[in-house]
């Protein structure tokens, strides 16, 4: 049969010579290899000070977007919560009152919008489900914390800062 790659090599088990059995040349070879590594530049990225470049489609912390006039885009339709395989998103809808037109784009908005970052698997399905282009996972790595309750991020942490600031 034709071999798949022409890399086949027939091994023959010759008995080791005395020099090979003494193990010393091999030790010297190994020592020289490790010594080469001793003078190599370390590959470490010292994390909090330096950060690795993320890929372009990296999915980090969510942000709730505003439109070009600074109004919140989210209308609390709940599609993101429905699409979420980890059931990390909850929200409470509310009706926009007169005088709040500069805050919310549509008549309905999310009064409470919470994502449990411990449940979130950063799959990006909420991003895909959103009909209003209101949620994107374009943030940084979610920071660590000590208490579980502190990982439930509300609108204070998720909504983009207003435009005029």
């Amino acid at each position, binding site marked *: 049969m034709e071999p798949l790659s022409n890399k086949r090599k027939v091994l023959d088990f010759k008995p080791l010579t005395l020099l090979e059995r003494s193990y010393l040349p091999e030790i010297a070879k190994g*020592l020289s290899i*490790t010594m080469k*590594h*001793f003078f190599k530049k*370390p590959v470490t990225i*010292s994390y909090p000070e330096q950060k690795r470049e993320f890929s372009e489609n990296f999915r980090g912390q969510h942000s709730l977007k505003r439109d070009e006039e600074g109004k919140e885009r989210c209308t609390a339709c709940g599609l993101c919560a429905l699409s979420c395989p980890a059931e990390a998103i909850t929200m409470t809808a509310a009706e926009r009152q007169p005088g709040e037109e500069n805050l919310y784009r549509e008549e309905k908005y999310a009064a409470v919008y919470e994502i449990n970052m411990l449940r979130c698997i950063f799959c990006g399905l909420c991003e895909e489900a959103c009909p209003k282009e209101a949620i994107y996972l374009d943030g940084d790595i979610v920071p660590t914390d000590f208490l579980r309750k502190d990982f439930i991020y509300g609108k204070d942490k998720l909504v983009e800062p207003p435009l005029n600031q």
Partner: protein
Amino acid sequence: MELLDIGIKFILIVVIFLISLVVAMYSTYAERKVAAFFQDRVGPNRAGPWGILQPLADGGKMFMKEEIIPTRASGLLFIVGPSLAIMTACIGSAVIPWGQSLQFGSRTVDLQVTDINVGILYIFGVVSLGVYGIMIGGWASNNKYSLLGAIRAASQNISYEVSMGLSIIALIMVSGSLSLKDIAAQQHGFWANGYFTWNFFKQPLGFIIFIVCAFAETNRSPFDLPECETELVGGYHTEYSSMKLGFYLFAEYINMFISSAVMATLYFGGYNYPFMDSVAASVGPNAAVILGVVLMFAKVFGFIFFFMWVRWTIPRFRYDQLMNLGWRTLIPLAIFNIVLTGLFMTFFK
């Protein structure tokens, strides 16, 4: 002996004791740093500049940790084990000549705590006592892993002491003295009478046997079977916590320091360096002696680095390979070395 002599000896003892402790402490740091460099990492670098305070942080942690003595452990022996380990590790430095004598006016100060005429035998005695610390600790823990580690340590040390002793016999045949001071003094300079003075060049085979045995005696990789974590959890110190564990780890590093010093003294000229007579003539005898001490420590650190270098190069031996190497390779080689040395001395000198 005058009171001043006793005072000087006391200061020397304290200084050597402190130096061994500090060297052992910073060996842990160096070990981690060297390991990191060999693996293309940076190693500890957060505690102080370049992580230089890391050993202090580790030591502080060791002292603060809760002391756990297992209920089924034998109480007294459990404490005796690490104490014995660290004590035997520390007393080995007593006979090592760190330098020649300093001259203060009419007073001569030896840079050696004591020059007993059986210096090498003393070192051997101390080293073989060291295994008791491991044995007792492993036995007293009442844990199968500890016991296995202790048994391995004991049989390994006994096997390798034989060939270590035999390799030393050939060296003693050349030097004609058991005193480390004499052996160091015989290696004066670097070149005399048409040949190197350092014993390494007279006993290359003996040195290889000795260094292999030194690795085994200090339980360093590739002979770290007594504490191999893949098989025995932590070996003989599985049940130990807090500073008792610290003492075991510390004892290992002091042993490494002492055996490096012994190797430097026996085979690499100790405090001797090339052109030492002309250096002494130009900068004065005391400065030359200090330079010798510095070079002695440089050699010791070189050996310690070699210990670490080998640790990250050679994988651990299997137990039967270890025993095979000890009994069926090194002992015949050491005996062959003795015969060779004897023949050489009979027919060429």
